[in-house]
């Protein structure tokens, strides 16, 4: 059972998506686990053959306990347990007692149809006949894209237990404020260049491929984090371990309250188009209550962007074991001095909350300035 959050002690197995004897490869989704954050698709981190399933659907399994045995290639007989797909030990127990494990709902079995969990859930919600669908995914698996367009929607039940989610947020944020000596920096950055570039880039695009300013913010932060590694990584067991990869956790507000900040993997390496597509996909899945174990487990730095509504600045609380969170307020027009004259300019409030055990305000200021500087050359993002 992987650790899917700083506060998690156990998860409830909802269903297996593999059988003993089945071959699996790294990244395959093998199970669905219910946590305080909702249902999470568990990816496997090793290739091999499923030898034995150790947990029954419905069982509550402590973090770190094996869920199944897999036999890796070339390994003849008795197998090893699937390791939790995070390479760090489970974090220290939160100072608040975690709430009881969430109740489990069993999706109805759907025969031997190959279908992704997200598609299965949506198909079940809509009462679709799986046998009538044609899959285009790996091995002919039915994916979300293979489902017909939704009928006029009946209001769906909330995919989250909001009191559970609130308890999870409370535990993680209380731990953060107990353990992490935060310091805060704030700046206002003029973004005329980014706004104009974005308007030009979007002018000829249909809505489905348009970019949002938030994608530029995330990319600029990811690039800056590469140059300032003390803001990108994990503080655990009394020491900071910088991360070579930059996986930006994107704070996503949920309707009805609560939020999640799952990772966009290798954010700094993605084109803006790819990043935007992934952000849209992630927001859609998270709000539908469905995300993947690796997205929960491994953000190295969080970005919280308020979009174009809301207020001008937000000061975040660091999500442990991360060591920094970058905040973007809404973009506003303000009087600005350029070449000795005052004119209206779009500006954004940029903030940093960072961990004093790892960095100081001087480096934090340089990091934040680098984010702002990156936004001045949007064409290079």
């Amino acid at each position, binding site marked *: 059972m992987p650790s899917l959050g700083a506060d998690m002690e156990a998860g409830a197995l909802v269903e297996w998506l593999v059988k003993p004897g089945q071959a699996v490869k790294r990244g395959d989704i093998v199970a669905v686990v219910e946590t305080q954050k909702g249902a999470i698709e568990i990816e496997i981190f090793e290739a091999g053959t499923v030898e034995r399933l150790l947990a029954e659907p419905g069982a509550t399994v402590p973090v770190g306990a094996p869920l199944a045995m897999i036999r890796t290639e070339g390994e003849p007989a008795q197998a090893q347990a699937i390791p939790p797909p995070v390479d760090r030990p489970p974090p220290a127990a939160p100072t608040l007692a975690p709430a009881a494990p969430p109740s489990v709902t069993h999706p109805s079995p759907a025969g031997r149809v190959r279908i992704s969990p997200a598609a299965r859930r949506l198909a079940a919600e809509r009462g679709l006949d799986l046998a009538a669908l044609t899959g285009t995914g790996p091995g002919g698996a039915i994916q979300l894209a293979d489902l017909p367009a939704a009928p006029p929607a009946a209001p*769906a039940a909330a995919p989250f237990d909001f009191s559970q989610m609130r308890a999870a947020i409370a535990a993680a944020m209380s731990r953060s404020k107990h353990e992490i000596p935060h310091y805060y920096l704030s700046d206002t950055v003029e973004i005329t260049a980014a706004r104009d570039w974005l308007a030009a880039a979007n002018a000829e695009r249909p809505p489905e491929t348009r970019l949002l300013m938030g994608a530029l913010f995330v990319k600029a932060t990811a690039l800056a984090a590469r140059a300032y590694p003390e803001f990108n990584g994990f503080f655990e067991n009394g020491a900071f371990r910088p991360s070579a990869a930059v996986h930006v956790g994107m704070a996503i507000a949920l309707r009805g309250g609560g939020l999640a900040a799952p990772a966009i993997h290798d954010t700094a390496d993605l084109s803006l188009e790819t990043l935007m597509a992934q952000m849209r996909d992630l927001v859609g899945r998270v709000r539908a209550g469905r995300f993947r174990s690796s997205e929960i487990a491994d953000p190295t730095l969080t970005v919280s962007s308020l979009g174009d509504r809301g207020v001008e600045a937000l000061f975040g609380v660091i999500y442990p074991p991360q060591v920094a969170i970058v905040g973007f307020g809404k973009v506003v027009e303000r009087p600005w001095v350029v070449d000795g004259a005052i004119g209206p300019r779009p500006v954004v409030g940029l903030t940093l909350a960072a961990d004093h055990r790892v960095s100081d305000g001087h480096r934090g200021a340089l990091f934040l300035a680098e984010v702002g500087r990156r936004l001045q050359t949007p064409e290079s993002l």
Partner: protein
Amino acid sequence: MNEADILAVIRDELARLAPEIAFETLDPALDLREQVDLDSMDFLNLLTALHQRLGVDIPDADAAKLASLASLVAYLARKGAAPPP
């Protein structure tokens, strides 16, 4: 499509983004995003769905002007909203 048909499509798509809202209670003259609490990603998803379902080109430069339900419906009707063949 007439304005009632367009409104029905918008209602349908809003129900996906914000299942808990009571569509009838929205004031068509007021800012839709404020009333329904749509963020920029939600609004972009709404425009994407309307573009695909109604076949109307909605340039980015126009999107900012479509703040209210009334202005959105009028815009789509003027641009000849029609279901894709």
